[in-house]
């Protein structure tokens, strides 16, 4: 059964947000995103000094699709997973690592930030976030009623005519 992605918020969101914020402050990473494997942004943080970020929707969907393709490759090659991906350019690095089976920590940083330092601190952050996600697995789903679908349908009319 397909279930749409629904918001879970409150304390857990704040804690995840805080962990990513701390990671950025500790390492000098410019942008940190937690992306689900469908390609949606779950959380994102930007360093205060960072310039305007790239389009987060596009980053998230490309990261998730890349991870899906890479997971398929891992499966073909007899690996359980390829958990970590690093793309280094002239000016910066994109670093993606799995957080459990459902999400991906995505970090973008420039050449002044040592990759090794990011990897060390990222693994700690990933363990912390994974623990929070584990706590959420047994929570009851958010319930919506007919008023929601009717209200949303009204907005659909506005958007699509």
């Amino acid at each position, binding site marked *: *059964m*397909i*279930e*749409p*992605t*629904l*918001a*879970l*918020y409150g304390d*857990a*969101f704040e804690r*995840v*947000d805080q962990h990513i914020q701390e990671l950025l402050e500790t390492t000098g990473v410019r942008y940190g995103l*937690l992306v*689900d*494997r*469908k*390609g*949606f*942004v*779950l*959380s994102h943080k930007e360093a205060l000094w960072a310039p305007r970020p790239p*389009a987060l*929707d*596009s980053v998230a*969907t*490309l990261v998730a*699709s890349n991870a*899906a*393709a890479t997971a*398929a490759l891992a499966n073909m090659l007899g690996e359980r997973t390829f958990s970590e991906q690093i793309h280094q350019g002239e000016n910066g690095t994109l670093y993606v690592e799995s957080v459990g089976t*459902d*999400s991906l920590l995505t970090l973008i940083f420039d050449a002044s930030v040592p990759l090794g330092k990011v990897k060390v601190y990222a693994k700690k952050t990933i363990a912390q976030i994974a623990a929070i*996600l584990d706590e*959420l697995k047994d929570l009851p*789903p958010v*319930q*919506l*009623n*007919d*008023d*929601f*679908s009717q*209200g*949303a*349908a009204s*907005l*659909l*009319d*506005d*958007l*699509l*005519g």
Partner: protein
Amino acid sequence: MSTINFAAREINCKIVYYGPGMSGKTTNLKHVFSKVPGHLRGEMVSLATEDERTLFFDFLPLDLGSVQGFKTRFHLYTVPGQVFYNASRKLILRGVDGIVFVADSAPNRLRANAESMRNLRENLQEHGIDVRDVPIVLQINKRDLPDALPTSMIRAVIDPKQELQVFEAMSDKGVGVFETLKTVSRLVLERLSQNK
């Protein structure tokens, strides 16, 4: 499978445009991109081959707005239609909430339409999803071809039990594009409220 989303009160739905190669899936998204105001959509991402065939996907995010405190958004994807890109199609179907099946009205594409629908059912099944459990809308595209097949003939090979809502379209002119998207979106939203 439900996905945890920490964005504050945000609901995200994934709609995938499926169908044989060159049936007009990407053209649908390009039309939506060109007609929806910039502040209500994100950038369109297209991953295509040199001859502009979809290689992995096209992607277009839409912002519906806020409903009962929930920011509600749709992510539209197309899949590559050619047979040999089946690995890509399987991946893009992960977490799908609604499907637009874009059929081609050309006489020489009747078999391709049927094969693509069969492929869709197979790929959904690999994700543990019965095709009857996903909102699907059928768009019969290229209705302006001089030798376009009757819709009844196309439907006979794609939807013989007539279970799907059908829209005729000419996606390169924008005809039928919004009606199709609005209907599948409504079906997805209704399913949300049913809490299935």
